[in-house]
């Protein structure tokens, strides 16, 4: 069954530096790291020490407040370093990989007879659980909750982001198994694909297929949820990344934890942007070297797309949830009289106070300059242009800034995640940090309402 969703508001940013649809195997990395800050709100309780030897699939830490959720090592080897930050917060657990990889193998029951309880237990025990996130709050799912639905988006619309027909190429079988297993956890399983998607993903069974059309953020699972089955106060839905569905599927086929990550390494400073077959937590340095980013001095490496990713460096590691690694030049420069209307047509703007509307086909080469300074909220209507939900974004942001819980709830805080406000970050002329405001507000809601 296929249902169409049409998104009208939004923005497709055309940037230079997209990866051609060729898939390479990433150069082997000697180190691998799990970064607990990838799991927002999880307080890590370590079960390993520096020097512990560990198998792939063996837990590194678990969540202090939900100890059934384990976070496992993607490779076998020795725990080389536990990097800590302020207040001894764990930042990175680095594992030096062995030459010969050994994995924990779980015993699986027959898949056609598997019960929902068994699926849940296996996902938790094997370290697959963190692949499942929940809305509201955009955090790792609570295993005790009963979701009203599970959503998977196999559509990526963010600028330069990895495309799922490349990522899932050849993984259809594992993907179907993953969907079958997840559908045990909730009968309402929704899979969104692009409107033109002709790949086999659109023929996945055991789920409702939605064909989604329109500009970014049409691919955001939050936007899709809003149009398919919006979250009301007190309800929970789960979301799983499309490649993670395949990872879960492979686990149920083999019994071995699999943290494959197909990465699009993109950005206009790169000479040969490319897709790589890699692993969650793999070291970025060899990949970046392979892609032609030699001198990283004035470049920013981002785990994720240019709108929602987190800054890392060439010494960083592949993030847990992202399929894209973006590289941008730092915008640490002055522009004389750059604020004049129509100045600098090479910098994209959705506002007609720039000339970029004259060049709809141009591919832009942005840097990280803020193009202005933070100001009070003055201009109205510009946020709504890039926010395709039946929610008043500016009013919601103001409620969030005022920590007005009741108002946030009324205005729809449960339906949004920070990534849904990424284009507002991009487009608003007051240069306010909408994603950060929403993240703080969700944390506050989680603390106060739970």
């Amino acid at each position: 069954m296929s249902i169409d969703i049409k998104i009208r508001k939004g923005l497709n940013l055309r940037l230079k530096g997209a990866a051609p649809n060729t898939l390479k195997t990433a150069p082997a990395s000697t180190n691998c790291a799990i970064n607990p800050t990838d799991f927002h709100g999880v307080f890590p309780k370590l079960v390993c020490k520096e020097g512990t030897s560990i198998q792939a699939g063996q837990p590194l830490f678990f969540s202090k407040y939900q100890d059934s959720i384990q976070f496992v090592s993607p490779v076998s080897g020795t725990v080389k370093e536990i990097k800590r930050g302020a207040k001894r917060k764990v930042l990175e657990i680095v594992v030096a990989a062995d030459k010969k990889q050994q994995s924990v193998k779980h015993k699986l029951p027959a898949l056609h007879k598997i019960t929902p309880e068994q699926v849940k237990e296996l996902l938790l025990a094997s370290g697959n659980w963190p692949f499942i996130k929940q809305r509201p709050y955009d955090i790792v799912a609570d295993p005790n909750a009963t979701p009203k639905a599970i959503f998977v988006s196999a559509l990526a619309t963010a600028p330069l982001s990895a495309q799922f027909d490349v990522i899932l190429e050849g993984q259809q079988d594992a993907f179907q198994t993953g969907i079958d297993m997840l559908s045990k956890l909730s009968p309402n399983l929704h899979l969104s694909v692009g409107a033109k998607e002709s790949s086999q993903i659109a023929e996945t069974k055991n789920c409702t297929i939605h064909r989604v059309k329109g500009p970014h953020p049409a691919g955001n699972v939050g936007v899709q949820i809003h149009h398919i089955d919006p979250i009301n106060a007190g309800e929970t839905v789960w979301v799983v990344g499309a490649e993670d569905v395949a990872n879960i599927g492979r686990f149920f086929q083999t019994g071995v934890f699999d943290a494959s990550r197909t990465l699009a390494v993109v950005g206009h400073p790169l000479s040969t942007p490319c897709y790589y077959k890699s692993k969650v937590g793999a070291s970025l340095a060899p990949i970046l070297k392979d892609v032609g980013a030699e001198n990283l001095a004035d470049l920013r490496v981002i785990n994720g797309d240019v709108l929602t990713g987190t800054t890392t460096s060439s010494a960083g590691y592949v993030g847990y949830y992202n399929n894209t690694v973006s590289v941008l030049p730092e915008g640490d420069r002055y522009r004389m009289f750059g604020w004049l209307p129509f100045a600098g047509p090479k910098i994209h703007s959705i506002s007609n106070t720039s000339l970029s509307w004259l060049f709809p086909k141009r591919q832009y080469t942005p840097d990280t300059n803020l193009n202005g300074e933070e100001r009070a909220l003055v201009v109205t209507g510009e946020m709504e242009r890039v926010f395709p939900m039946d929610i008043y974004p500016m009013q919601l942001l103001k409620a969030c800034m005022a920590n007005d819980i009741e108002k946030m709830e009324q205005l729809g805080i449960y339906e949004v995640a920070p990534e849904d406000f990424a284009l507002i970050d991009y487009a608003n002329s007051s240069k306010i940090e909408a994603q950060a405001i929403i993240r703080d507000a969700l944390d506050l809601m989680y603390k106060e309402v739970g």
Partner: protein
Amino acid sequence: MMIRKQIDRLKKPFAKGSKFERFAPAVNAFDTFLFVPNHTTKKGAHIRDAVDLKRTMVTVIIALIPALIYGIYNTGYQYYIQTGEAFTFLDAFLHGSFKILPMIAVSYGVGLAIEFAFAVYRGHEVNEGYLVTGLLIPMIMPVDIPLWMVGLSVAFAVFIAKEAFGGTGMNILNPALTARAFAFFAYPTYMSGNKVWVSEASNVDGISGETILGSLASGVSVDYSMFEMFNGAIPGSIAETSTLWVLVGAAILIFTGVGSWRIMLGGVIGAAIMGYLFNLWGANTLMQFDWYSHLIVGGFAFGIVFMATDPVSAAQTVRGKWIYGILVGILCILIRVFNPAYPEGVMLAILLMNVFAPTIDHYVVQSNVNRRLKRKQHSTTVQTA
């Protein structure tokens, strides 16, 4: 980048931890006028749109310039045709400049001084909003108003209408209109009557310049042609008279998306309907005044294009903007017709609607909230059923 190096050297004493750190906002305001700063994104989206508040505000100033230039010319033109002297375009323009440029200087001087002081006091950067307000205030004053009154009105507007509410983005009332309303009620003899609208009218005996709405209110019909009213060769506040050049500004605002076309169109619709209804009634000269003429005389065009669209004091939701615009139009004509003490209704209409804009938005947003509540009730009944 010689200049850049010089500026960085000059800014050293204002850097974080240095002696004059707290004055940094004032210095930055000048610096960022020369250069878009080298700030990079720290959190959130890593790339940003080229637009910022400075560019937005400067666009409004560009949109104001046609009306301002015509206003300067018209000031001289009105003066010379009343005295009967022969004059050239340049004479008229120079006469107007001589009158108006000092008013602009006073407005910017007083207003920006207060803005800078508040920025330093509050420790935030100087917002660009006053660049527009500071130009608007002289443009909507009668030409012969003493400079100290301009200064005092500016101070009142910035202190009471803006900073008292928390500064840019927080004000309820449009600051420029507040300045005019202050002058209007504090110094009525300088702001209304038949001796204030033409330059030097009170000093030269021969001059009597009554505005069209003023004449109509006192029951005298006007003998200006439609073209004169549209072109703006009529007495009035400095830059409000020319509907033609205001429309050029409106086109700039609408094309760049800086001004809300919904509010403008809503205002025109509201005023046209109200004017037409009064035409049908037709009890006095003001009611008989053609509805389309209402749109091009007085400050209506200027007010609806440049004042009602102030995004901070107007309604902020799409539906709210329509309601707000239409009500401004209706109220403007209502005040014009029913209250002869205030022949120009647009100022009071906009100020009144400024006060009600949050209420309009409240009900628009509330309907969204109710929709969400209803959806929740629906889903719980489905679940329990």
